[in-house]
């Protein structure tokens, strides 16, 4: 029985590796001295050593005596998996001493946060927000001057500037609490100057940044939903509670369509794309982890479907979302409903860009396309009309092997210039 997608396990919020390892441990042969009460599960996991594991069902807490720094560890997930698979293996009993004393210690702690944590007053919050707004406005004013200098002196000169030229400006924006703008400046520095097309790409990037500066300086004149986007792009973040309060929550059977990971020298970014089975909406779950380690909380396996609640960030074109409550199990799913022509897909992109000028990526699901290769080696997907969208540079032979040159449902990510296939066959269903 596959229990990894059960809501009770996902409520523990394990990362993917822990989930897989824990699922394996959810077999009776790994456990001894197991038991349960209404409040708590406990047991001893037999591995390279014996670890004591307990899960507080009421307080959503757990403990394990293993040295892992992952919370939850695989033993905690394993105990919950055992309970789901073989509930009879955890007979009702009085908790042993080590469990009872742990529960006793948890009692006061459960109440402590609410009593001790004092939310800042409204006036304090407004004052802090005002100070930050001023710092960001100062940073944006500096950025506008810097952009005007580049415009006046020319891109040819900017092309010869050392990396520090871009990095200094990015650092100033970080100091001004505008990390979103800083990331855009760093992205400009990362465009390879030696490649043909640098002037066009750099100018487009600088142009989008200039538009963002322009919008921020007139924030009160901008559409209220677009204001959220401008603030987000500049670098304001929203807490989970704020997203829930301001954004739209949609319950649907959400299909995990594809997943991509990108890494720069600081962060690994994971983008997971979902499609609502009933609403037809697409959603993007964006996650970050440091390059030095760390993993992503479980979102879902590609080509599965689950009843979930997604809350969208407030936006003129709501796309980014976070997963809330889940119900039932994830099930395999490959019947993707996509666009029947490229024109329809590109029209949806046009609508997104019209509502949000800085819209960057779209989920692209195209029915009945074939994979083709140009003489110079570039790959395209092409529809019945014979028109093609270029794919990102990379080896697409595996996709050709899977699809056999026949029409298939393509799933990828469109960045405005190229399509990036997702899943290399996962979710790609050959049509007869």
């Amino acid at each position: 029985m596959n229990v990894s997608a059960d809501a009770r396990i996902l409520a523990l919020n394990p990362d993917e590796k822990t989930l897989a390892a824990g699922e394996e441990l959810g077999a009776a042969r790994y456990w001894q001295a197991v038991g349960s009460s209404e409040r708590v599960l406990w047991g001893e996991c037999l591995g390279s050593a014996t670890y004591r594991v307990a899960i507080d069902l009421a307080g959503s807490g757990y403990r394990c005596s293993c040295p892992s720094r992952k919370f939850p560890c695989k033993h905690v997930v394993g105990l919950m998996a055992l309970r789901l698979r073989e509930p009879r293996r955890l007979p009702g009993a009085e908790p042993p001493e080590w469990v009872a004393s742990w529960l006793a210690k948890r009692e006061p702690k459960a109440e402590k946060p609410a009593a001790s944590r004092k939310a800042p007053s409204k006036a304090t919050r407004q004052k802090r927000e005002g100070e930050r707004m001023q710092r960001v406005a100062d940073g944006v004013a500096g950025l506008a001057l810097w952009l005007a200098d580049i415009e006046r002196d020319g891109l040819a000169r900017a092309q010869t500037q050392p990396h520090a030229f871009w990095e200094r400006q990015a650092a100033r924006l970080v100091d001004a609490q505008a990390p979103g703008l800083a990331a855009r400046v760093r992205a400009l520095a990362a465009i390879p100057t030696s490649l043909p097309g640098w002037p066009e790409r750099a100018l487009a990037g600088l142009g989008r940044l200039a538009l963002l500066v322009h919008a921020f300086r007139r924030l009160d004149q901008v559409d209220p939903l677009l204001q959220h986007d401008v603030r987000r792009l500049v670098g304001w973040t929203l807490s989970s509670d704020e997203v829930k309060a301001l954004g739209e929550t949609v319950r649907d059977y959400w299909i995990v369509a594809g997943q991509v990971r990108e890494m720069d020298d600081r962060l690994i970014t994971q983008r997971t794309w979902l499609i609502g089975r009933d609403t037809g909406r697409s959603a993007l779950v964006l996650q970050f982890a440091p390059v030095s380690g760390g993993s992503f909380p479980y979102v879902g396996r590609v080509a599965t479907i689950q009843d979930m609640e997604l809350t969208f960030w407030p936006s003129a074109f709501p796309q980014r979302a976070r997963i809330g409550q889940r119900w039932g199990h994830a099930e395999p799913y490959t019947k993707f409903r996509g666009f029947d022509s490229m024109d329809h897909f590109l029209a949806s992109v046009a609508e997104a860009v019209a509502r949000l000028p800085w819209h960057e990526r779209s989920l692209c699901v195209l029915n009945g396309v074939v994979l083709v290769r140009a003489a110079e080696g570039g790959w395209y997907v092409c529809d019945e009309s014979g028109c093609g969208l270029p794919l990102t540079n990379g080896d697409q032979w595996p996709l050709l092997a899977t699809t056999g040159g026949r029409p298939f449902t393509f799933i990828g990510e469109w960045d405005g210039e190229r399509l990036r296939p997702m899943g290399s066959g996962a979710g790609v269903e050959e049509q007869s």
Partner: protein
Amino acid sequence: MTDELVQAALTGSGRIAPETLQAENPAEALGEHMGLLLRAGLRDVYRRAGYVPSPAPEPFPPAPEAREMVCPPLVEPALKEMIEAHSQLPSAPGEALRALAKRSWMLPPGLLVSALSSQPRLPELASVLGERGRWLAELNDDWQWAIREETMPEPSETERIWMEGTKSERVALIRRLRQTDAAGARERVAAGFASEPAPLRQDLVSALEVNLSSADEPFLEAALDDRSKGVRQAAATLLSRLPESAFVGRMVGRTRKLVSRHGTSGGLSVQPAPELPEDWRRDGIGLGLPAGADLALARTVQVLASIPASVLARELAVSLEKLVEAVERYDGSALIESWRQTAAPAERETLLPLLWDMWWAKPLKRATGGDTAIMLARTMSQGVLRHRVLRLLGDPPPGTEHLIVLVLSQVGEPWPSDISRSALDLLGGWLHGTRRKDRTVGGWLQLIEPLAAHAAPETIEETLELLAGIERANVVSAWHHEIQRATNVLRLRERFWNAMATAVAESMTTTGANDGGNG
């Protein structure tokens, strides 16, 4: 192509006439100092919103419908591991592909690219490509090898390689040409033979072994007079493989003076050859003899080695067994190798086991190490080899562990159960003896790596248990990494074979269910 806006941006607004930017300048209305950049930003928004797809290249012809059965999906993850495990275990991809071929299962489409791109190439691939794989290989020049025989180069390319190629390219060309035009290739070699450097002449003569026939005899006979010792030896080697050649006739004549029958039992007496006449020298006798050897006896052995064993037995009117028995006491690696090479296919089943037994009677005295044993193992049929190797494993001559490991590498992969179990018995015996501090246990730890790589699938679990026992005994801490590596290799193979067993069982259940339905 760079347009006006990009040109202006490259130059800089401070260096261009103001009127250039005034038209449609949104900055005027917006009161900004970044007019040019704002125009660029707006244009980028328009471009993204109004993206127009371009006409695409011609599509590929679709793959034909697959008629063969594709490997079941549950095997795919383990199969992928095996194909990609080449650096860890070079024999893994071949083992997996052969297992598929045995069940007539084709590679799943998702694994075709990694298999076709594998380096070195996988010769077993052709039989598991299936319709989809052949279609795919057809579309990529780098994968044509998997679906086509090696083709002859175009005539112009042949000339270019012959005139301008490196030494190895020229020799490879002659070997290829010999397959389709043996006479033409020989004439090409003969045409400028005298002007080629000696090492190349030697290799070109050796290349004539491909499709060797009596038509090559005149050229080879002439090469016996070459100024290079290596060329003369190469020519003599090839002439000895032509039973009807004058060279073999001369050697048979010499043999009559050196070998005689005695008694009625068919035994042979072999005499040393104290003299070395000039005509013997011309035929290569006396060349390459090791210093300190009994030269007279070594010359006799050289004469015998220059005649195919079957021809010699016929001329002396003795059986092959008697012939081998007569020469058994000599350090006969050269003799064994020569008779192995000249053995006609029909004689191999009889002659090669005799040569094998002759070699293994004194394995540690053979001057050529394990090369001769390996060559014999390669030429013998798998059935005969398996029988001989089992005998060795059951009663290994002392000090031959490394030689036995060498010949085990020639047993088909994976090994049959009986060979795997015999090897496990040896390794288990080693562990038992080591625990008792027995100093005569031998060097059977060397079996760990070949056992991990080739043990029969049904013995993998036993092998893992034995390795765990060796680790627990902690008697060879220096081998910890080797044991870990071997354990990983065995687990990799175990995953694959377990997946195969499950898939086979499922397919049989399905077939059974279908049969039941039809019946």
